[in-house]
């Protein structure tokens, strides 16, 4: 019985560990430039300011406010992910995996807040998932905007 309990604890921890590691590896994928800034500005998203507050200014964690802001950004971005420049109008496997990761991180943030441990880390992970979504949408919009244009066509549109 002791061995079974030990295996249960270790393997459950490993499930979460591998899941998180897989998500982090997907998030580490680099984009050729920061596409998310235009999406953030156009939709007045707040996750970059939350990240700045947490990383640069070491501001105290305002749990309920930050959580609400991040969840609102998540709703906006997932809507755009499905509907903006997406002919199939459905999420990709990668999107779904990261959406699940975001929800699990929201749950983990509630637990961390309850026990007052590592809230900052969970918030930063949430902002990096949102940034990835922003980059995906931004790149897609960029491709849709410039997809059929050659370099000279593009220059002509600047008049």
């Amino acid at each position, binding site marked *: *019985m002791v061995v*079974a*309990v030990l*295996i*249960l604890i270790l*393997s*459950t921890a*490993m*499930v979460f*560990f*591998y*899941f998180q*590691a*897989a998500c982090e*590896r*997907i998030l*580490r*994928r680099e984009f050729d430039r920061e596409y998310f800034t235009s999406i953030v500005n156009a939709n007045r998203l707040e996750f970059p300011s939350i990240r700045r507050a947490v990383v640069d200014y070491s501001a105290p964690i305002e749990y309920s406010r930050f959580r609400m802001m991040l969840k609102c950004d998540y709703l906006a971005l997932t809507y755009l992910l499905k509907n903006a420049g997406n002919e199939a109008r459905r999420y990709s*496997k*990668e999107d779904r*995996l990261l959406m699940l990761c975001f929800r699990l991180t929201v749950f983990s943030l509630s637990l961390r807040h309850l026990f007052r441990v590592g809230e900052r880390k969970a918030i930063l992970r949430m902002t990096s998932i949102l940034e990835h979504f922003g980059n995906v949408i931004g790149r897609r919009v960029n491709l849709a905007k410039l997809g059929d244009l050659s370099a000279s066509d593009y220059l002509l549109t600047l008049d």
Partner: protein
Amino acid sequence: MYILGIPGSVLLGYADYGSAAVLLLYLLYRVFLGRASGLRGMTAYMLASVVSGTPLMWASLHYGPRSPQYAVSYWAVSLIIVFAAFLLIGSFFRRACSDGVHPIWRYVRLMLVLVFVLTGAVSYLAFSLRHAHFFPYFVIEFHQDLYFVCLVLTTMLYLLLQHFESADDQLGLLVCGLGLGYAGPAASLALYRVAGGSALYGEAAGYLIPLCEIAMVSIWFYAAARVPKPVSATEARRAREVMPVQALARI
């Protein structure tokens, strides 16, 4: 839970088999195009998994999931799959050691052989103390031990990748998928055992195991389709050696 008169766990099992078949088709397509660098081990594993799963599906439909014929084919197929997984982990270890160039590969290879022989010996000892019949008890014992060994080896492989600070994101994702595919079922079965074999937890395990396997297949699919394998030093050197010869041949 029943959907169209079929238990939900059985439907999930079919979905698991279907997703594995789709991944196999994709990998075979890549092999056909000659763009399967670093994916051959995974293709062989998926081929073993899907091909050996076919008689299991047939036994389930023909004899029913509670028949002894199904039980025998289940354990035989599981043993083939775990054995294939052991070989796959070996190929991942080789890839992690710069395609066998790193000096540590010699020790890793020796360790893998020793671990396999030891697992077989321990399973045989544990089996011979309790049972008189070879099959299926030895198969079950050996399967469980090898399964646990694969889980431990996957974790060691992950730690090795961290230690080498590997830039091979594709391999990292493949290992994460494998870890998820092993840790999930191990946790489900341990929960079932801790709960004293309760039917409720047994049913939960019936849902969780195919779900974890579908997650593994999805991560592998993503890694194969979207994350390129970085060119290793050996491949680059080989390309440099081959190029002038090909150029001369054209002349």
